[in-house]
């Protein structure tokens, strides 16, 4: 009989961890509250910087976990510690006894409507990065004009923003904005495309190349300044105001489409989970790791491990790497080493 | 001696005659045009030099040595020298001897200038006299010389490396026609004279050949066609000559006296520049010499292509070639003819019109010169030195150790010397910068100015007029300090290879002083190519269009040239070279100032400094 490991969250972190656990000889039980696996990545169109289809990644991960127990549309209702074991009760009535739990509950996309000044949900042509990806995936949207003459991207929407309750950088928005700006320019070569940024944080491998391409090949203009407010003009266009901090002057421009790069905020469901399993929550609302350097996947409770964006904003490669290291840490824990 | 044709004419001479008339007409027209393009003063100077015995003699000597004997080429490569001088001198002698024959035997025919060329066709039995046979011998001898030269030329086409040329320019179609015509002339002449030798007589080449041919061919039918062919080859050669590289033959004879007269290029497309362009023999020596050749993409951007494109009037390419060049001056240094490639490019750059003119009225001249008051010795490090702070720091240390009363005038940044502006061809703007700096320097009250950047040094010595101020290159200054005993050297075990910066070596002719200075302080080795053939570091501001990325190969090739010495470190005397080399070098790169500072102690005790 293989040993159970409960994996909470069926995004790419949970899937990759389950795959690794299977390979290590365990019986991972994947619990996902939505009706599909893959989390946010499954909704995405293409992944930077290689522009690989996100669906391919999710499918590949799927193929690796066909032997795992997967509960979709299922929530964890309680976690109880019994001597060395945890008893995990699920909303579908299943209860599982296990010695190790992996939390891969991910993040919640920041609700862009909370940045009221940008008018998401109020103005016709304001969308989020997720909306745009959905449109890239072929879903119709009347918010996206058929032939925009100008498109703007606002970085850091709900990231690095104390007032929005999210003081941390979401890491992926800069590169996502660059990626989406390129994709928009590919679709609408005549359109002027602006990126409004505070800092360009293009830290990852190949990200800088991407940025240079965006400037050189696509003529995307990067304006250093946070959009302060958005208004709608008589003809339904958007008047965007920002400071061009590099010129030291206020700046305005009319756009046909404004894309808000909603950041990663903590998954609100995690608070309940943390209460049940007596896990520490960090100052940013994400789960607190044992230490942020060498033990990012380790929790304050024995046998409970973390992977992916439940501890903070992560890129896909970071998430997958963490999932693998968490699987290995679980393996070592269960082996008593 | 019998004249075979009483008329002294035969139609086969017509092709030659026409070619000759054409080429002479063309040259006369060209000379007149160029003379008109010269400024009045230059023209006067030119004519004056022609009748001044000293320059006139020099002209004759130079033309004889350069155009006929190709002395410079001999120095460069013996095979190349032999090939060129055998063709040029041999041909020259054939013409001279031809005239001697005519004057000797048929002086009344000397006015027909095809006569000396086709002498053997028109006469019979001229070798019966001693004079005649000697002349026939000489004629055959020089023909042989030329033929050997032509044979070598053919070999050179396929194996140019034997002649010290790695790369040669691809000849254009017309150049090929000219080349093949030239190749054809002398074998045809041998054939023609051989077929006629039993009538006209001949010598050690033609008589045996005549005998051999008669065994095979048996009749005189071949005689006339070969003379026709010979004449046609000559005609073709002369007709295409103005449009091929062979134009350098007459052009160089114009170039030499003009250069000896002291003329300078004043415009890219006129006068002396034009003579230089036509004087380019397309030999391609500059291709191998050009540091840009390290990158195949630049192979068609050296001087030989510039002159070619200037002759064609291809403006796009002229601009491209002019702007890309590093202005290192090496092509000029190796050019056998003396085509000033960099100057031609500079003048091409200068032809451009810039809508935005410079305005340096904001330069606070008074404040700058006030600030520079106090020191007897002004130290000017130049813009680039600010990016290589070790130079300025070392200079200050050297000054202090030697007890020099100095002031570093551009420590906090100053006015650029103007050379970069000048090399961009914006001469007026450069003059504006020169004016500003002149005011600052003269206003400072200093009597000496030490310059550590060769770019600036060249500018200060050539373009500035600074009465009362001695402009000294820092190498000279430091050498003086050593000689005066104000600095005491301590030798280093390190062996340095000294890189001649373009602007200092070829630019200012300073080759030995840095070596002397370095030699007192450390071991010294020579690069594979050094002094006037030093390879540009690739960082030169001379190039306008070479981007950072495209300079990498050039720098690496230049470093390879230095590495060949197996030295421990690289020494140079230019901030730009130092910065450029430091980017890719696998061993330390030091400016001479730094080395002097490291390897000397002051006579003063530290407390007195």
């Amino acid at each position, binding site marked *: 009989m293989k040993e159970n490991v409960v994996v909470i969250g069926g995004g790419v972190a949970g899937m990759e961890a389950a795959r690794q656990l299977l390979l290590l000889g365990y019986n991972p039980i994947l619990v996902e509250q939505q009706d599909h696996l893959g989390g946010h990545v499954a909704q995405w169109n293409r992944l930077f910087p290689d522009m690989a289809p996100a669906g391919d990644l999710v499918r590949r991960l799927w193929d690796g976990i066909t032997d795992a127990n997967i509960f979709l549309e299922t929530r964890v209702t309680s976690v109880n510690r019994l001597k060395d074991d945890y008893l995990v009760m699920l909303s579908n009535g299943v209860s599982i006894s296990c010695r190790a739990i992996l939390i891969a509950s991910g993040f919640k996309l920041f609700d862009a409507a909370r940045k009221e000044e940008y008018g998401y949900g109020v103005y016709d042509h304001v969308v989020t990065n997720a909306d745009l990806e959905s449109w890239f995936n072929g879903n119709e949207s009347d918010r996206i004009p058929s032939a925009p003459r100008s498109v703007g991207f606002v970085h850091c929407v709900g990231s690095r923003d104390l007032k929005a309750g999210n003081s941390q950088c979401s890491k992926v928005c800069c590169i996502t904005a660059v990626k989406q700006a390129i994709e928009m320019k590919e679709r609408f070569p005549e359109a002027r495309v*602006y990126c409004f940024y505070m800092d*360009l944080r293009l830290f990852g491998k190949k990200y800088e190349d991407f*940025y*240079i391409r965006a*400037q*050189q090949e696509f*003529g995307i*203009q*990067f304006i*250093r300044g946070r959009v302060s407010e958005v208004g709608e003009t008589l003809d339904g266009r958007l008047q965007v105001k920002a400071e*061009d901090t*590099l*010129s030291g*002057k*206020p*700046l*305005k*421009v*009319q756009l046909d489409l404004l894309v808000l790069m909603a950041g990663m905020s903590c998954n609100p469901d995690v608070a309940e989970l943390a209460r049940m399993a007596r896990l520490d929550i960090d100052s940013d609302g994400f789960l607190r790791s044992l230490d942020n350097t060498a033990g990012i996947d380790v929790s304050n409770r024995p046998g409970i491990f973390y992977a992916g964006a439940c501890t903070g904003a992560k890129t896909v490669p970071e998430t997958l790497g963490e999932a693998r290291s968490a699987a290995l840490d679980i393996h070592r824990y269960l082996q008593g080493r | 001696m019998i004249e075979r044709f009483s008329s002294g004419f035969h139609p086969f001479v017509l092709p030659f005659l026409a070619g000759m008339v054409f080429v002479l007409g063309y040259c006369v027209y060209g000379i007149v045009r160029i003379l008109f393009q010269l400024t009045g003063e230059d023209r006067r100077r030119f004519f004056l030099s022609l009748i001044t015995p000293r320059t006139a003699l020099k002209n004759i000597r130079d033309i004889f040595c350069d155009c006929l004997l190709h002395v410079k080429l001999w120095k460069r490569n013996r095979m190349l020298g032999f090939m060129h001088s055998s063709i040029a001198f041999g041909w020259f002698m054939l013409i001279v001897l031809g005239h001697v024959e005519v004057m000797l035997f048929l002086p009344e025919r000397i006015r027909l200038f095809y006569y000396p060329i086709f002498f053997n066709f028109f006469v019979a039995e001229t070798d019966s006299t001693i004079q005649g046979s000697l002349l026939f011998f000489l004629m055959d001898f020089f023909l042989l010389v030329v033929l050997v030269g032509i044979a070598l030329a053919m070999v050179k086409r396929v194996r140019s490396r034997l002649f010290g040329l790695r790369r040669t320019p691809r000849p254009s179609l017309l150049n090929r026609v000219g080349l093949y015509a030239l190749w054809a002339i002398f074998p045809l002449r041998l054939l023609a004279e051989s077929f006629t030798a039993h009538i006209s007589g001949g010598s050690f080449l033609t008589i045996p050949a005549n005998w051999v041919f008669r065994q095979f061919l048996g009749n005189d039918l071949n005689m006339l066609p070969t003379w026709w062919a010979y004449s046609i080859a000559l005609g073709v050669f002369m007709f295409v000559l103005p449009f091929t590289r062979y134009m350098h033959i007459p052009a160089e004879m114009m170039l030499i006296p003009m250069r000896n007269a002291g003329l300078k290029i004043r415009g890219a497309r006129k006068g002396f520049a034009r003579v230089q362009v036509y004087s380019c023999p397309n030999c391609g020596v500059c291709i191998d010499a050009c540091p840009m050749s390290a990158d195949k993409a630049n192979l068609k951007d050296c001087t030989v292509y510039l002159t070619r494109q200037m002759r064609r009037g291809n403006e796009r390419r002229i601009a491209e070639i002019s*702007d890309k060049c590093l202005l290192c001056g090496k092509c000029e240094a190796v050019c056998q003819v003396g085509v000033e490639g960099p100057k031609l490019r500079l003048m091409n750059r200068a032809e*451009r*019109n*810039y*809508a*935005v*003119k*410079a*305005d*340096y009225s*904001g*330069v*606070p001249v008074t404040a700058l010169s006030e600030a520079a008051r106090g020191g007897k010795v002004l130290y000017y490090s130049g*813009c*680039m030195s*600010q*990016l290589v702070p070790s130079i300025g720091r070392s200079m200050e240390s050297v000054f202090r150790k030697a007890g020099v009363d100095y002031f570093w005038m551009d420590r906090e*940044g*100053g*006015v*650029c010397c*103007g050379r*970069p*502006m000048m090399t*961009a061809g*914006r001469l007026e*703007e450069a003059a504006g*910068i020169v004016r500003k700096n002149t005011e600052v320097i003269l206003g400072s009250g200093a009597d000496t100015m030490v310059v550590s950047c060769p770019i600036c040094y060249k500018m200060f010595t050539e373009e500035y007029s600074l009465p009362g101020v001695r402009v000294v290159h820092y190498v000279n200054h430091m050498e003086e300090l050593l000689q005066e005993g104000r600095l005491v050297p301590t030798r280093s075990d390190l062996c340095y290879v000294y890189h001649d910066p373009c602007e200092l070596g070829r630019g200012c002719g300073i080759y030995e002083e840095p070596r002397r200075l370095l030699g007192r302080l450390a071991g010294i080795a020579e690069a594979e190519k050094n002094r006037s053939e030093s390879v540009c570091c690739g960082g030169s*501001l001379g190039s*306008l*269009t*070479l*981007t*950072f*990325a495209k300079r990498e190969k050039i720098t690496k090739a230049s470093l390879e040239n230095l590495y060949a010495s197996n030295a421990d470190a690289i020494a140079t005397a230019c901030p730009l070279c130092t*910065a450029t080399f430091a980017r890719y070098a696998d061993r330390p790169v030091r400016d001479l100032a730094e080395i002097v500072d490291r390897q000397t102690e002051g006579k003063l005790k530290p407390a007195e400094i």
Partner: protein
Amino acid sequence: MMDFGFKLSKSATLDLDRADTGRYERLCALEPDARICMNCGSCSATCTAAPFSGMSLRKVILGLQRGQDVRPMLQGCMLCGKCSMVCPRGINTRHLILTLCRIYD
């Protein structure tokens, strides 16, 4: 018109829709590297002419993107080439400046 002792002041706002970026586009066509400037300011920091003229290549490129007249800055340039030495993106700044000086008409 009545004098109130004060006047409407010209808006300092850069209106990107009204900015004439034709010159910037022309520059980019001739010098594609103009596009990859990332406004780091190395060029301005090292500029020989900056203390005398306010020359800043960074501001020149930015100003062109915003449709401003950058000639006053350009006029101070001495073409010394320090900017090309320090540019982290390897932009051939000298040639860019020369091109700019030519396309103004």
